[in-house]
């Protein structure tokens, strides 16, 4: 159980979700049950079946390199909770990339 909670904490950090202790316990339990159910997948032989990421048989759907602006800039920026000087605001970040 503690192992499951540790795993949930690790995944939550990757997914940027801050969880309460109660949520952590609940999700650890659920993950355990769901993974238990899905264990059967591992036993299934899928040799000869390539991963299928798309159901549409399309290739090369491309657009011409022609500018097309979006008219309603205010409508876009208006969706944000915090905007200053036409820029989106975030807490100070140290540029570490």
């Amino acid at each position, binding site marked *: 159980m503690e192992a499951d909670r540790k*795993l949930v904490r690790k995944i939550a950090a990757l997914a940027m979700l*801050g969880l309460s202790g109660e949520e952590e316990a609940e999700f650890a339990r659920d993950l355990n049950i769901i993974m238990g159910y899905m264990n059967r997948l591992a036993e299934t032989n899928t040799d000869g079946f390539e991963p299928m990421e798309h159901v549409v048989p399309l290739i090369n759907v491309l657009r011409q390199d022609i500018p097309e602006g979006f008219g309603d800039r205010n409508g876009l920026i208006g969706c944000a909770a915090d905007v200053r000087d036409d820029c989106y605001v975030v807490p100070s970040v140290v540029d570490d990339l």
Partner: protein
Amino acid sequence: MSIQDLTIKEASELLRRRKVSSRELTESALDRIRRENGRINAFITVCDDLALSQADAADKRLAGGDGASPLCGVPMGIKDSICTRGVRTTCASRMLEQFVPPYNATAVESLLASGSVLLGKLNMDEFGMGSSSEFSIFGSVKNPWDTGRVAGGSSGGPAAAVASGLCCFALGSDTGGSIRQPASFCGVVGLKPTHGLISRYGLVAYAPSLDQIGPITSDVTDCALVLDAIAGHDPRDPTSANREGEDYSQGLNRDKLPIRVGLPREYFGPELNKDVKNAVFKAVSMLEEAGSSTGEVSFPSTEHAISAFYLISSAEASTSLGRYDGIRFGYRKTGAKDLEELYQLSRSEGFGREVKRRILFGTHALSAVYRDKLYNKALRIRRMIARDFSEAFESFDVIVAPAYPETAFRMGEKTGNPLKMYLGDIYNVGANLAGLPALVVPCGLDRRGLPIGIQLIGKPFSEKLLLRAGYAIEKRVGRLRPPRAGEESSEGG
């Protein structure tokens, strides 16, 4: 004039003959929503003024003889996962509670262009994740047949609104049965089209390789009429099919329907409720009556369908929902002390529990250590499932399935047990995983008087054939209508 019993076709005829105006229809619908929505909770947002101005514009078009589309002047509702310009689009989530998109989904654009009137936005499970429309910050949708029961999900709002006559038709979206199961629970018609037939532009993504917009209507003819308006290529959606247009609403009624119908053995096992099974078999016999032949088929991969579906859909959701970070749109936690806190708190307070559960599960399935074992394995199973279907289509034109193992369940019955909720989608997820069209048509009532739907799954782009088969069943079953006790007393019969 009440729109409660009007199909699109009927409304359209009245509009063209000037027996009724779009404004009258719209006012009547708005009035009905005011009275009934409290009981059903189908609408999240009602846009009275916008609807009335659209109705007036439609009346002008109709008066000018420019009523080309049968949808002109007909009031509709749109699931709240589909973007509407200037009308808030919440996905039933705190995350998007205040989100007003400055753009329309392409499907909405098409409907507005044909003159349909937007009454408002419809309730659902948050971000489409659920099978009961109970996971909504705006409260559960109630089933019009029995308000103690769920309307199904995630498109519970659209199904309940059409069933209770709050709008003439609605658009839903379907990732793993989200149109078909609520249509079945509410006794209406729902179509999940072939992946790529309808543009996904403006549909808030849950799992892009599975998501598809589709109509929810009172009958098969209406379903075809809406499909006529929204199907087609869209350069803004690279997965949209570029093919010749079809006229779905013409020639639905066939005297003879000599098609081959396949019944998958695995879909009629012990988990299937008897009443549902009997109703579906009865509907199959109606198809036989119309000239079709029936045979059994086996889908051995069915046992893995739920696992594959939840792995793929959750994995896609975990990345598709990363964009909700509080910066450009959506819920933002104020006073966060640093960036990480802004992310973590905005996301954990903005998303509901089921959404978080799936994001976590999907993140896990994609993580470096588990990706091969979980996500990639699921993609291989997906190919297996798709092959099962394509092999079956060598011998059959249509595969028949129930839409759900049972009829509408009680409120709260499954919310505490996610796995139990997921397992119910067993007959639905195959069509999404393989990208196939699937139509649900009402085919009877169970012993409690709750509606049952039959599901018809076809080859890619065989919507027209499915609609014809659905029509043949509908012709014999007749339209199902929920009891309207509250309505009768208030209107005096």
